[in-house]
């Protein structure tokens, strides 16, 4: 039993050391969505066959909203050094504050995202109000 606890303790120290080392080496980085083409590619990776006809990027490139010809809307955002997305097919928690649109998908673990969409924020906020409950 003592031997098992020693192994457990050593493993814990090792994983903390490795995580610290990853930070020390500045692994990871700061990724942004640079243009509509990249947002389109991320959306297609998120839901195969999703072809956006309307795209708005966050001013800092941390996320985007997209709409396809069927009227489906998708939120994409960065997650570490990758991107994740969700189809917004149900009523979402959306709050508009001038150019900033805060969206909660209803998934607690996914969290809320605040996007700076400039003047387009109102248009996209209006689109989110029409989602089914």
């Amino acid at each position, binding site marked *: 039993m003592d031997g*098992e606890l020693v*192994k*457990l303790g050593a*493993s*814990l120290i*090792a*994983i903390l050391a*490795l*995580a610290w*080392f*990853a*930070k020390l*080496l*500045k*692994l*990871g*980085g700061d*990724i942004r969505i640079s243009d509509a083409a990249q947002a389109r590619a991320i959306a297609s*990776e*998120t*839901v*195969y*066959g999703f072809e956006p006809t309307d795209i708005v990027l966050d001013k800092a490139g941390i996320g985007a909203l997209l709409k396809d010809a069927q009227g489906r809307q998708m939120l994409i*955002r960065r*997650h*570490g*050094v*990758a991107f*994740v*997305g*969700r189809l917004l097919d149900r009523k979402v928690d959306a709050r508009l504050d001038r150019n900033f649109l805060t969206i909660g998908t209803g*998934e607690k*673990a*996914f*969290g809320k995202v605040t996007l700076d969409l400039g003047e387009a924020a109102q248009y996209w906020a209006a689109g989110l109000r029409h989602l089914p409950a």
Partner: protein
Amino acid sequence: MGGGAEAFARMIPHLPNPVDYTVPAFVLLIFLEMLWARRRAPEKYEPKDTLVSLAFGLGSTVAGALTAGAVLAMALWTWQYRIVTIPFTWWAWIACFVLDDLAYYVFHRTAHRVRWFWASHVNHHSSQHYNLSTALRQSWTGFIALGFIFRLPLMLIGFHPAMVFFVGGLNLIYQFWIHTEVIQRFPAWFEAVMNTPSHHRVHHATNPRYLDRNYAGVFIIWDRMFGTFTPEVEEEPIRYGIVKQLGSFNLLWSVFHEWVGIARDVWSAPFRYKLGYVWRPPGWTHDGSRDTSDTIRERWQENQAWTNSTSSSSAGVPGAAQPLAD
């Protein structure tokens, strides 16, 4: 257990868990891969993701220790009913290793095709990164998912549980080093027989072309034999993770999210569909409102066929692409 079997059991050498001896090497190799990443591709590691993966590994060890007694008891109980008694000789070790790898293939394929098993195995796939730390992203709930039952046939044949668990440890060790993007391809003969980083990258991909392929543990021959092999192709960069990416570094959510999903679906489904959310493939719904790997691949194949039919320069089978050069 009869007297003869008890005498045989007393003759069994004490076999250590080989994984215990390789953990320092795992740590060292991750350390070296991080140095590589710093020079070549810092985005291959994400510190938070790495910490979650390593915590998965640690938690999995604890969960394994807590349930080891029960698993061993079930293995020994099964071994009572063995067809023959296989001795601890060199050929038995080889046979056991190969058959255990076949059992792993069956387990692994089931783990991707039956949601109950996937709820546990999804943990290994939920990182959007593919590096050596991902290899340690092991499930905490393998016992609940009953993953150990896939090894029981080996005990029924007559391999002693100690031998089966030992070769299972070797299998796990082999699978560690293939979780890397540092190595591209090995010589053709090696790629033909063994599971390699290239083959296993395909397995971790979410691209429709690659979904649910290359289930092998050590020998890729099982996938070639049973029609589940797909090579890595040059023109399609791999995207890692799961079809619906987690979007969270919360460890507990990462561990239990699919179990929570099953519970919610079973609760809300009409009575006659409830079990379907347990035993059907991940993504299955009674109303077809979500995608499974099969539906995604079908759409992709239709799209490829349409693209090929409208392109005068294209020829060959839908979705055909050039494998990476051997």
